[in-house]
């Protein structure tokens, strides 16, 4: 009884310290979940509460839960502003060959496009443009910088 209580408390303390240390590193290096960027450093807003970009894991094009949340906000905003068209700009980090990254950027932007379309935004209002690794937002050569650069950014076209 006592022992298990001690163990349980000890466990809680351990968990708490892990959370704390995680917080500490997050503060220092920005935020990463796996290797997907979850911070707001480079993020701009299409409207209040509507972030303009979503982030991807290395070599991946699937949307994370957070990305889907962002895109649903974009879809809501686009439904309210039915005259606005957007360009989805797909990007890759610098750790890949140029041509493959162009294809990867195109695929990332299309992941975002497909999701907006399932939330009722017409494909006529969405165009896609891949920059591959040509337009990083962060010029760093480290995992955090690369995570910010793996992105699809929704840009107003009109």
């Amino acid at each position: 009884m006592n022992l298990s209580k001690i163990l349980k408390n000890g466990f809680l303390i351990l968990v708490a310290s892990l959370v704390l240390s995680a917080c500490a590193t997050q503060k220092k290096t920005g935020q990463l979940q796996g290797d997907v960027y979850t911070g707001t450093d480079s993020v701009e807003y299409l409207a209040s509460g509507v972030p303009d970009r979503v982030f991807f894991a290395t070599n991946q094009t699937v949307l994370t839960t957070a990305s889907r949340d962002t895109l649903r906000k974009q879809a809501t905003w686009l439904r309210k502003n039915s005259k606005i068209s957007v360009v989805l700009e797909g990007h890759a980090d610098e750790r890949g060959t140029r041509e493959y990254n162009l294809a990867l950027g195109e695929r990332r932007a299309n992941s975002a496009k497909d999701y907006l379309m399932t939330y009722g935004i017409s494909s006529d209002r969405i165009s896609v443009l891949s920059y591959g690794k040509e337009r990083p937002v962060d010029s760093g050569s480290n995992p955090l910088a690369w995570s910010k650069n793996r992105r699809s950014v929704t840009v107003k076209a009109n």
Partner: protein
Amino acid sequence: MLFRYLLLLLILLPIKSFALIEVDITRGNLSPLPIAVSPLSIDEKSRENFKKILKKENIGSEIAAVVENNLKQSGLFNPLNKDAFLQKPDIANLKPRFEDWNLIKAQALITGKVTLVDEKLRVEFRLWDVLAGKEMVALAFTTIPSNWRRVGHIISDKVYERLTGEKGYFDTRIIYVAEEGPKTKRIKKLAIMDQDGFNNKFLTLGNELVLTPRFNPTNQMVTYLSYFKNLPRVYLLDIETGMQEVVGDFAGMTFAPRFSPDGKKIIMSFAKDGNSDIYTMDLENRIVERITNHPSIDTSPSFSPDGKYICFNSDRSGYQQIYVMSSNGKNVKRISFGKGLYGTPVWSPRGDLIAFTKLHKGKFYIGVMRTDGTGERLLTENFYQEAPSWSPNGRVLIFYRETKTNSEGEGFSAKLWSIDLTGYNEKLVETETDASDPSWSSLLSN
């Protein structure tokens, strides 16, 4: 216009003899051949005239310097210091005193003579086997004076070919992307230069992003990717006239272009709805053909020199790997099975090897493998490097390398490098600006 040089080539004494001295080309620069490049002799009147036309004190010495530099850069030759030469250029060209050249350990000797004939530059040169005391090659060229560097390159190619048994690669040019500005707002222009870095010219102004220029192996056309009007499309550029046109009418991004070996088709990727496949377009009848049809990314296609096969990059296995298929898209076969990711396959002009970029454990490698994927050899390792392009004789690879930035995100640079197929003789290729995406032309004269 720019490049329409008329080079009148006339052969003085075509002699056929067995190579008595040989360069061991399988061992890179381990034992470069000692060679003496005598300044080409020039009479006083011609020297004065060329000085007026070309603003060069002694054009004979200048041409010899081009030859010497080419041979040295190849890593296969060791041009000897001129201070040690005992014989004057004019006398050496008539009949070398072989004992004198033997004394300074030269195994081969290049001599020559420059004259001004009817406003034209006339150059004769001879290659001598010092040990056997024999002439190996003797040729003469007549051309317009401004072509003097090309004469040096052609002489270099003749010497290289005679002594190695392989075609040279000196009378060639490199097209590349010149880069400037911060990493996040890079300005890129198409640029072209001689293989030795001279005669650099910018071909675009930098108003739009341009990437991956590649030469047509049969003429002076170039294909590349331009973001003109923010529509990334494959373009065709005639570098003689400056004329440009979009290749094909695609409703989406086209990229990763390359010419077929006969120069009649462009092979490239077309991306639509998140999927990239490979297409060809015939430049004569404009017929577009789809080559791959797969939900994965298929890109970076490159034809075999006989045009029968295509190597390309695909992530159909889950990650980037190299595949080979017949030119009609059938018989797709994965050939890269080593650890890591593989990209940018490019078929050697000799046909026997495929050069590639490999990413493994955070490092980038340039390597070669046989066309069935066996015999993988990594030539160089670095933080970031990619996009090898073959010299026309399949002997040297040129590629680009980027540096890691510091903690402030500063210190980025992109430079061209070359390396011998053996992995020896890795060299920085000097450019006026930062540079990437190099592509090697065919021999201009043949």
